[in-house]
C-alpha cells in the first residue's frame, strides 16, 4: 500500500541551513549535506530544500549543495525558491534535483507551469501555494487566498481554484503552506488542507504549523494530505523522523518504517 510521506525541509541561504521562524530571525544551523544524510539515515521519505538566498550573485550556491547532496543521498529531492525560468529548472534537475517547486513565478505567469510540465514532465513540477484564511468585513470565514512574498502580498486568487488550475496546467503535486500557521507550531491548517486535497487529484503536501507528532497525524488523517513537510521539529531535534514514523504507525497511518538493508557489504 502506498504510504504517507514525511518530508523534512531545509531552508538554505548562501549554501547553509537556516530556519526561519515565520520567515524572520534566521539562525544558521549547519551544512545541508550533513543534515540531509542524517535525515536519510533516519528514514525520511523525501527531502526538500527551500533556497532563500537573496543576492543574485549567490544564487548558484544552491546548485553546489544539490550536487553534493545527490552524490550521497538516494531519495527524492525537491528544490524550491526563486525558480523563474526553464533554464533555472534545467540546471537544478541536472545538478540532481528530482522535482522543483514553483511559487511566485506560477502566480505571475501560469503558462510557465504549463511550459515546465511539457518540457520536464509533470512528475517533477511541484506548485507551492502559500495560503491564508480570508474573512468578510463581518469577520466571517471566507475561504483562503493565495499570497506571495512570504505572505505579505495578496494575489486575489482563491487557493482552492488556484490549486485546481495548477493541476490542469500540469503540476504533478501541490505543496500547500498555511501562512496563518507557518512558524506557530500549533498544528497544520486542517480545513484548508482537506479542501485542497479533495479539490485536486494530484498529491498534496501539507506544510506550516507542525509542533508535535500529533499535528503530523492530523494533517495526514483529518487534513487528507498525502505527505507532510516539517522543518523545525526535525531540525531542532524535537523529534526524529523515526519517532514520527513510529507515532504515525501506532495511530494507523500507513508509513514506511526504516529498513535495514546495507548495499555496501
Amino acid at each position, binding site marked *: 500500500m502506498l504510504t504517507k510521506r514525511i518530508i523534512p525541509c531545509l531552508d538554505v541561504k548562501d549554501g547553509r541551513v537556516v530556519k526561519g521562524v515565520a520567515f524572520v530571525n534566521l539562525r544558521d544551523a549547519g551544512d545541508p549535506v550533513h543534515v540531509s544524510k542524517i535525515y536519510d539515515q533516519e528514514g525520511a521519505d523525501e527531502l526538500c530544500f527551500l533556497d532563500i538566498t537573496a543576492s543574485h550573485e549567490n544564487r548558484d550556491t544552491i546548485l553546489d549543495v544539490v550536487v553534493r547532496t545527490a552524490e550521497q543521498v*538516494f531519495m527524492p529531492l525537491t528544490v524550491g525558491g526563486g525558480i523563474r525560468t526553464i533554464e533555472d529548472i534545467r540546471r537544478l534537475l541536472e*545538478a540532481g534535483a528530482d522535482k522543483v517547486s514553483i511559487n511566485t513565478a506560477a502566480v505571475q505567469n501560469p503558462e510557465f507551469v504549463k511550459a515546465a510540465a511539457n518540457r520536464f514532465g509533470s512528475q517533477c513540477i511541484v506548485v507551492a501555494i502559500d495560503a491564508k484564511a480570508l474573512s468578510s468585513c463581518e469577520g466571517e470565514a471566507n475561504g483562503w487566498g493565495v499570497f506571495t512574498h512570504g505572505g505579505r502580498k495578496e494575489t486575489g486568487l482563491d487557493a482552492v481554484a488556484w490549486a485546481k488550475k495548477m493541476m490542469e496546467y500540469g503540476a504533478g503535486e501541490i505543496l500547500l503552506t498555511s501562512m496563518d500557521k507557518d512558524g506557530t507550531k500549533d498544528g497544520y491548517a486542517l480545513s484548508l488542507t482537506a479542501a485542497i486535497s479533495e479539490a485536486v487529484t494530484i498529491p498534496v503536501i501539507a506544510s506550516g504549523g507542525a509542533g508535535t507528532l500529533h499535528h503530523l497525524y492530523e494533517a495526514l488523517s483529518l487534513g487528507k494530505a498525502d505527505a507532510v513537510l516539517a522543518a523545525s521539529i526535525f531540525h531542532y531535534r524535537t523529534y526524529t523522523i523515526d519517532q514520527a514514523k513510529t507515532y504515525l504507525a501506532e495511530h494507523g497511518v500507513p508509513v514506511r518504517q526504516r529498513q535495514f538493508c546495507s*548495499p555496501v557489504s
Partner: protein
Amino acid sequence: MIAIIDYDMGNLRSVQKGFEVVGHRAVVTRDIETINQASHVVLPGVGAFGDCMNNLNRYGLIDPIYRAIRDEKPFLGICLGYQLLFEESEEFGVHKGLGILPGKVKAMLTVDAQGASLKIPHMGWNTIQIAQPAPPLNGIDSGAFVYFVHSFYVEPAQAEMTCTTTEYGISFASSVWQGKVFASQFHPEKSQGIGLSILKNFGNWR
C-alpha cells in the same frame, strides 16, 4: 562498464552515482560505440512516452538498444525506460514502443475497487511482492519499500514475465524479468538502501 543511455529525458546523475556508490563503474552516454562496448546497459527516463521514443530515434539509440538485447547483455529499464520496452502506450494517444517485450502501457486507475479516488501520479513509497526472484532482487524480500512516481503502468502480455507486483487501486507489474532484461516501474536510484542493493546486484549480473 555500465552504459546509462542519455537521451535528454531526466536526471541521470543519480543513477550513475547510485552505481558508483556500490562499486560499479557507470557512464552516462549517447555515444553508440560506448553503448555497444558496455557490459551492461541501462535505459532510464522520465517524461512523456512519445517524447522519449522521438528522442531515442533522433539520437539513433534504438539500434544500440536492440543490439544490447540481442547480445544478451544485462539490461535495466527504469520507469519510462521500463514502459518503453513494451509494444505500445496509450499515454496522450497511442504510441509505439520498442516492442522488445509483449504488452501494453495503460493509464493508472483513478478510483479503487471500493470507489475511493486515487491520487495520480502514484507517487511515493510502496511495497513490492516478489513473484519471481530475478537476480537483481537478490537478498530483497517481499514487503520491501521502493519509490514510485508514475501515472501509467505496464500490463505484460505474459503474466509469467511479472517479477514483482505492487498494489495501487489494482495489483500491477511493478517489475518484469525476461532473460537478461530486468525492468522496473520504481526508481532504484531513489529507493535508498533497497534501491542501491538492486543496482549493486544488477552490476554483478553476468
